[in-house]
C-alpha cells in the first residue's frame, strides 16, 4: 500500500472519529493476506494509524496465519494489533479449502501460528478465530477443534452465497441451521465458556453486533489498497462491481461514502428490509441475515437471506433450548409427568437463582465476592444453598447470608458482614441465630465447625440455645418455619417456629401423606420428589379450612396447614402442580404477562388473571386425577365434579386467544387428557 494512501486513510479515519466523537474505531487489516506486506511495512502502517487516529483506534488484523512469526507478534504487541486467524476446524476440515498453490494443506502452518498466539506474552494480541462452515465437516468436531486452540472468542461464518449462487449443498448433508444448532447445543452444554459471535448476537440482539444477523446499522466500509472505498467485500459475490462506491479517500469523507444508497439502506434497521423480513416473527434477532446473502438478480437486495430457513431453524432451536423442550412440556401437560420430564424443572430454579445472584452482585454488595469465590472452590456447598426455595426472593443484602451459609457448608473460613432481620441472623439451609437488640449488620466469621459473631461462637454440633437449626422432615425436605423470606404467600399466614413435638407430628403427617399417594396415585411421586424441598407450615385459622399456597419465585416450597394424610396428599399434589407449571412458565411464557383480561374459573368467586386461571386448571387437573384413582363413591363424585370444573376452565382459557402457541399447546394436551378420562 502506497504511503500516501496510508496517510490519507489515517487522516480520514481520524476526521470521522473526531466529528462523531467515537470512543472506538475498529480498523481491520485484511485480505488477501495482510502479512504479505511484510513485517516492516506492517509496523509502518500500524504506527501511522496509531499516531493519526490516537487512542480510539482498535487495530486488528485478519490473517490465514501462514506467515505469522514471532517477529510479527512482537510488532503486533508493540502496536497493539489484535490478530484474528481463519481456521475451519481440524485437519480435514481446514485443508478442504485452505490450500497452497502447490496443493499442500495449510493446517499445520495455522496450528503453529496459533501456538505462537497462545504463548502467555502474546495472549493479549490473540483476537480469536473465524471459521467458515462446510457442511461436510461434523459440527461438534469442528467446534472442538476450534476450542482446542483456546481462542478468546470465535465466530462461525455462513459461506458467501446469494439466491443466484446458492450455498454449497452436499448429498445427505444436514442444513446449515441444523449444523449451527448442533454447535449451539454443545456450546451451551459446555457452559458457553468462549464467546461465539453469531450466537451472542442472536441471544443479545442490539448488545452484541454482528454483520451476519441483527438489525444494527451497518458500520463498516472497506478501503482498498488504492484508496477506493468499497462496501463489504462479501458483496463481490453478488454481481460484478457490486461493492464499488465510485468514491475514494482522496476525494470523499467517510460520511460521504455512508450516504451511498446501498450503505444508507442498511442504517435504518427493519425499514430497510424486504416485506417478508419486516413481517417475520424473529426479525429482531435475524435482521434479514447478512446483506449480500439477500441478493437476487431480479429484485436486488429486497429479499430475505438465502439462509432464511437456516436462520429460522437456528433461532427456533435456540428458543427451545433456553426454553423447555416441547416433549417436556407435552409430558407435564398430561398431569403427573414422567421422572425424566420433572427432572428438568429444579435446574431451571437453580439457573434462575444463580442469575439473580449475578444481578444482585453487580453493585458488589457484602457477600458477593465471597460467594463467587466459593462457587469456584466449593461449588457443591454453594449449590446446596442456592437451590433452596427462597433464594430468588433475596435482595442484595441477603448475599451475605447466603455466602456465610455456603462457607460453613464448605468448611471455609471467611468473614462477612451479615444483616440481622427480625432479631434473626439467618443462614439459609442451616438455621438462624436469635440475636437480641436492634437489627444491625454483624461480622460473621465462618469455620468448618460453625461460625462466630462478636464474642459468641456457634458450633453446629453443639450449639448454644440461641441457635435455631433447620429441621428436616425427610431427607431433602426441610421444614421452613424460621426464615423471614418464607413469608411469600399473599392472603396466607405462615406459622411461627414450631416446637419439637410439632415437628415430629409434621414428619409423621408427611410420611403418611406420601404413603397415601404411593398407594393410590404413585404417578405423582416423581414430581414431588423432584420438586419439593421445603414445607412451610401455615397457621390454621380456626375454621377448619384447608389452606395451602405456592409462589412463583419460591420453587420447591409448599405452604400448607396441618391436615390428615389423605387431605395433605391432595394439597401437596395441588401445590406441586403449581410449582411444576411455575418452573415451565419461568422459561416458556404461555401468555402475554401484560394482558389485563380476566378468566372465569369454577373454583373461585371472581375472574382470575390468565396465569391464575392456567395455574388453577393445571392444579385441579392433578387433584382430579388423584381422586379418579382413589376407590369408593365419594372419590368418584369428587372426581366427576372436578373433571367438569377443569373442562369448563379449559373452555374459558382456550377461547379469545388468551394463550400463545406454547400455552395453547399445553391447554390442548390437558384437554386431551381430561377427554380421555
Amino acid at each position, binding site marked *: 500500500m502506497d504511503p500516501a494512501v496510508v496517510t490519507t486513510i489515517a487522516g480520514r479515519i481520524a476526521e470521522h472519529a473526531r466529528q462523531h466523537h467515537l470512543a472506538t474505531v475498529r480498523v481491520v487489516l485484511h485480505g488477501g493476506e495482510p502479512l504479505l506486506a511484510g513485517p516492516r511495512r506492517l509496523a509502518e502502517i500500524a504506527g501511522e494509524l496509531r499516531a493519526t487516529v490516537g487512542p480510539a483506534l482498535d487495530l486488528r488484523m485478519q490473517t490465514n496465519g501462514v506467515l505469522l512469526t514471532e517477529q510479527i507478534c512482537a510488532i503486533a504487541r508493540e502496536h497493539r494489533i489484535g490478530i484474528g486467524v481463519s481456521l475451519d476446524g481440524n485437519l480435514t476440515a481446514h485443508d478442504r479449502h485452505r490450500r497452497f498453490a502447490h496443493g499442500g494443506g495449510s493446517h499445520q502452518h495455522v496450528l503453529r501460528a496459533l501456538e505462537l498466539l497462545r504463548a502467555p506474552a502474546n495472549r493479549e494480541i490473540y483476537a480469536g478465530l473465524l471459521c467458515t462452515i462446510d457442511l461436510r465437516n*461434523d459440527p*461438534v468436531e469442528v467446534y472442538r477443534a476450534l476450542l482446542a486452540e483456546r481462542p478468546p472468542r470465535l465466530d462461525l461464518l455462513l459461506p458467501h452465497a446469494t439466491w443466484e449462487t446458492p450455498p454449497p449443498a452436499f448429498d445427505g448433508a*444436514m442444513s446449515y441451521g*441444523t449444523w449451527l444448532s448442533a454447535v449451539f*447445543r454443545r456450546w451451551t*452444554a*459446555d*457452559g*458457553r*465458556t468462549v464467546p461465539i459471535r453469531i450466537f451472542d448476537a442472536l*441471544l443479545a440482539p442490539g448488545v452484541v453486533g454482528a454483520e451476519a444477523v441483527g438489525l444494527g446499522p451497518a458500520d463498516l466500509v472497506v478501503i482498498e489498497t488504492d484508496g477506493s472505498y468499497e462496501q463489504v467485500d462479501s458483496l463481490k459475490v453478488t454481481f460484478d462491481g457490486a461493492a464499488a462506491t465510485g468514491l475514494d479517500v482522496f476525494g470523499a469523507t467517510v460520511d460521504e461514502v455512508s450516504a451511498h444508497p446501498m450503505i444508507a439502506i442498511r442504517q435504518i434497521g427493519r425499514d430497510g428490509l424486504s416485506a417478508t423480513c419486516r413481517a417475520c416473527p424473529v426479525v429482531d434477532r435475524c435482521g434479514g441475515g447478512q446483506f449480500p446473502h439477500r441478493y437476487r438478480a431480479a429484485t436486488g437486495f429486497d429479499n430475505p437471506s438465502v439462509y432464511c430457513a437456516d436462520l429460522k431453524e437456528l433461532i427456533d*432451536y435456540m428458543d427451545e433450548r*433456553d*426454553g423447555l*423442550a416441547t*416433549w417436556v412440556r407435552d409430558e407435564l401437560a398430561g398431569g403427573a409427568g414422567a421422572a425424566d420430564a420433572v427432572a*428438568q*424443572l429444579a*435446574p*431451571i430454579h437453580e*439457573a*434462575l437463582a*444463580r*442469575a439473580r*445472584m*449475578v444481578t444482585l452482585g453487580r453493585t458488589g454488595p457484602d457477600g458477593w465476592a465471597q460467594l*463467587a469465590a466459593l*462457587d*469456584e472452590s466449593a461449588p457443591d456447598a454453594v449449590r446446596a444453598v442456592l437451590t433452596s426455595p427462597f433464594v*430468588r426472593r433475596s435482595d442484595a443484602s441477603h448475599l451475605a447470608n447466603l455466602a456465610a451459609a455456603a462457607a460453613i457448608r464448605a468448611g471455609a473460613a471467611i468473614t462477612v458482614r451479615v444483616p440481622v432481620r427480625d432479631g434473626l441472623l439467618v443462614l439459609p439451609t442451616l438455621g438462624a441465630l436469635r440475636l437480641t437488640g436492634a437489627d444491625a449488620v454483624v461480622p460473621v466469621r465462618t469455620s468448618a465447625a460453625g461460625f462466630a459473631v462478636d464474642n459468641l461462637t456457634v458450633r453446629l454440633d453443639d450449639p448454644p440455645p440461641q441457635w435455631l437449626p433447620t429441621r428436616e422432615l425427610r431427607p431433602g425436605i426441610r421444614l421452613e418455619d424460621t426464615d423471614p423470606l418464607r413469608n*411469600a*404467600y399473599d*392472603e*396466607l399466614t405462615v406459622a411461627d417456629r414450631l416446637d419439637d413435638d410439632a415437628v415430629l407430628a409434621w414428619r409423621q403427617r408427611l410420611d403418611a401423606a406420601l404413603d397415601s399417594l404411593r398407594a393410590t396415585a404413585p404417578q405423582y411421586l416423581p414430581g414431588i420428589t423432584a420438586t419439593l424441598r421445603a414445607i412451610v407450615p401455615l397457621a390454621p385459622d380456626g375454621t377448619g379450612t*384447608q*389452606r*395451602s*399456597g*405456592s*409462589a412463583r*419465585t419460591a420453587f420447591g416450597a409448599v405452604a400448607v396447614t396441618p391436615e390428615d394424610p389423605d*387431605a395433605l396428599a391432595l*394439597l401437596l399434589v*395441588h*401445590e406441586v402442580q*403449581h410449582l411444576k407449571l411455575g418452573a415451565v412458565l419461568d*422459561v416458556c411464557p404461555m*401468555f402475554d*404477562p*401484560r*394482558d*389485563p*383480561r380476566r378468566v372465569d374459573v369454577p373454583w373461585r368467586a371472581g375472574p*382470575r*388473571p390468565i*396465569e*391464575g386461571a392456567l*395455574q388453577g386448571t393445571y*392444579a385441579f387437573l392433578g*387433584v382430579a386425577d388423584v381422586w379418579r384413582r382413589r376407590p369408593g363413591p365419594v372419590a368418584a363424585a369428587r372426581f366427576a365434579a372436578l373433571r367438569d370444573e377443569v373442562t369448563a376452565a379449559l373452555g374459558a382459557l382456550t377461547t379469545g386467544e388468551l394463550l400463545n402457541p406454547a400455552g395453547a399447546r399445553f391447554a390442548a394436551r390437558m384437554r386431551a387428557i381430561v377427554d380421555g378420562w
Partner: protein
Amino acid sequence: MDLIEDMRQDAPPLEDLRRTPLGRIDPARAASVGGADTPDEADLGRIRSAPFGSAL
C-alpha cells in the same frame, strides 16, 4: 458424530448458568433470563402466588 437428528434434549434449559461460575456469568445474560423474578405493575396477567383455601 454428535448430531441433533435426535432433537429430544435430555439436558435441562439454561445449562450455561449452572455450569459457569457465578463470577464469570455475563450480567447481561443473567438479566436477560431474570424477568420472571421481577414482575412489574403492568404485568396484569400474572400472579405472584397461588393461595388456596377450601377443601379438596
